């Protein structure tokens, strides 16, 4: 099991799978870091984005990677609207209400998809779906390598927004000190909505990178939620570098854990890490100390 020929591809595979997880976690960590919302609707939103990529391909023939400039703004708009006019309004700022609202949203989105698109699993076929790239004896699928690059790019873009733009500064201010931000004239509701929008925009990108190698049906999002939460906690809530690093680490742990303990029991590694991080280093690898 420790032979290089098995371990190396497994690690590479974990890194690329982890990249996709990171893409999903990037949005979640922003939403948590800024709004302190545990977004139960994140999986359902991913599902909605995947359907978006699917239909763009099936109906308009748009390649998933070329769909990025469509999906990102579309998901951003959805996120902005949801936070500004649904979540923000309904929750009255209370934890348990936010929980219920995002849960309710998840139920609505999932069943709307069921009603509109039926329960069939849908896949797309692209020229590069089965293309692989040999790396030192390991055969890695091309869509996953693209996803890896995509994750790095997205993280970079997010960091740029956070630290180089006024919006980024406003977001960081609201995350740190909501009342203070309001006092200096920042429209907190608008900034929160922008943050949620960016969070969902990340999902739009994630969907573009995920769809070629995966599939979509109304319940597909549920399989990613727990992993996304684990990565957010491991990386540090609110840290993009953390989400990236966390994604890679969890991807590799899942992969290698699967090799050693079997795919079913191997999943336990993820949650053991989750618990350990929460207990011993809750700010995560890169998060600020509470």
């Amino acid at each position: 099991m420790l032979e290089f020929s098995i371990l190396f591809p497994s690690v590479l595979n974990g890194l690329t799978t982890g990249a996709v997880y990171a893409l999903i976690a990037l949005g979640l960590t922003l939403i948590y870091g800024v709004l302190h919302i545990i977004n139960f609707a994140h999986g359902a939103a991913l599902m909605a984005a995947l359907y978006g990529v699917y239909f763009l391909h099936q109906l308009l023939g748009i390649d998933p990677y070329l769909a990025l400039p469509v999906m990102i703004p579309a998901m951003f708009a959805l996120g902005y609207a949801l936070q500004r006019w649904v979540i923000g309004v309904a929750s009255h700022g209370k934890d348990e209400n936010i929980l219920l609202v995002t849960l309710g949203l998840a139920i609505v989105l999932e069943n709307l998809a069921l009603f509109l698109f039926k329960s069939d699993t849908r896949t797309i076929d692209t020229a590069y779906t089965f293309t692989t790239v040999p790396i030192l004896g390991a055969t890695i699928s091309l869509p996953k390598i693209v996803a890896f690059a995509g994750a790095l790019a997205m993280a970079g873009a997010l960091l740029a927004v956070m630290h180089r733009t006024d919006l980024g500064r406003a977001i960081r201010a609201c995350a740190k000190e909501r009342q203070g931000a309001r006092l200096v004239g920042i429209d907190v509701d608008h900034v929160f909505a922008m943050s949620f929008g960016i969070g969902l925009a990340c999902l739009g990108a994630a969907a573009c990178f995920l769809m070629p190698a995966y599939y979509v049906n109304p319940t597909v999002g549920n399989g990613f939620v727990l992993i996304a939460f684990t990565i957010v906690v491991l990386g540090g809530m609110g840290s993009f570098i953390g989400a990236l690093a966390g994604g890679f680490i969890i991807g590799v742990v899942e992969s290698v854990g699967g090799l050693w303990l079997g795919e079913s029991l191997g999943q336990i590694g993820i949650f053991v890490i989750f618990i350990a991080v929460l207990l011993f280093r809750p700010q995560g690898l890169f998060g600020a100390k509470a």
Partner: protein
Amino acid sequence: MRGLIGIFAFAAAVAAAPFFVSSGYALNAIIMTLYAALLGQAWNILGGFGGQFSFGHAVFFGTGAYAMGVLQVKFGWNAWAAAPVAAACGAAVGAFIGGVSFRYGLRGSYFALVTLAFAEVFRILANTFEFTGAGVGLMIKLNESAANFQFATKAGYLYLILTLVVVAQLATWWLKHSRYGAWLQAVRDNEESAAALGVNAFRVKLAAIMISGALMAAGGVFYIQYLHYIDPHIAYGPGVSVEALLAPIVGGIGTVWGPVIGAVVLHVLGEGTRGLMGDAPGVNLVVYGLVLILMVMFLPRGIIGVFQTRAARNATPTARTGAGRA
């Protein structure tokens, strides 16, 4: 005292139901509503009164259900003997999770997420070991007689779940009126201040999670005796965890009747929307989700909040977002 009368009046009313209601469907509806109320009340003790929200309450439920299953199927125990052991297992898991989490000062979202992680760990373990039946799950032999803790009539199960709900109600009433309950609520409202006043926050929270765990495990006991089959997904999956927190939040957390009212409302909503399904699966649940969101929008303190006076409203603040660690 008035509260106690209320609980017993409720119990008496429901106990009388089998004499007036012969519809199996209606009796089953009452049973499942009470079941949801039990789960909700268990959650409410830790979440509403203790202020520690849990996203993985299934971890206690599944433990109770599996304990019942394993003791009967693998060890041949009598169900009546197994039941209190199962509840104790729930409390033990509560002690473990609470002990670890509270010792490391986990609060707020961090605590919520750690319970979620524990539930998943237990699910994976249950799926792995032969003695819990692994993926195949556990099936309790059908042997309907009161001696086996199985009942041929719905009424039998109704009394069983009613008893458990009454116990949960009494426990909650006691929380509301006892000194321990005052400590717990003080810890919920402001742990540091409570500690400064001499309350041992750790012990108080630990007791709460153990009580909550035991009651939730009782829900698991009921489930497996009623439906006879359990598998890792049913036992430890997100379904039960979500079900446990929906009723109290909708009804009003931190109150004695919140989970019961929430359970009734959600059940009626569920059945009501079911009829909308027609030929298009999914529509009914879209409506259900929308109503849920609307309920939160217009009843931010839960249904009970509508009936509370302003003074009472101000007297029961809820958990705050923010720092998740001591």
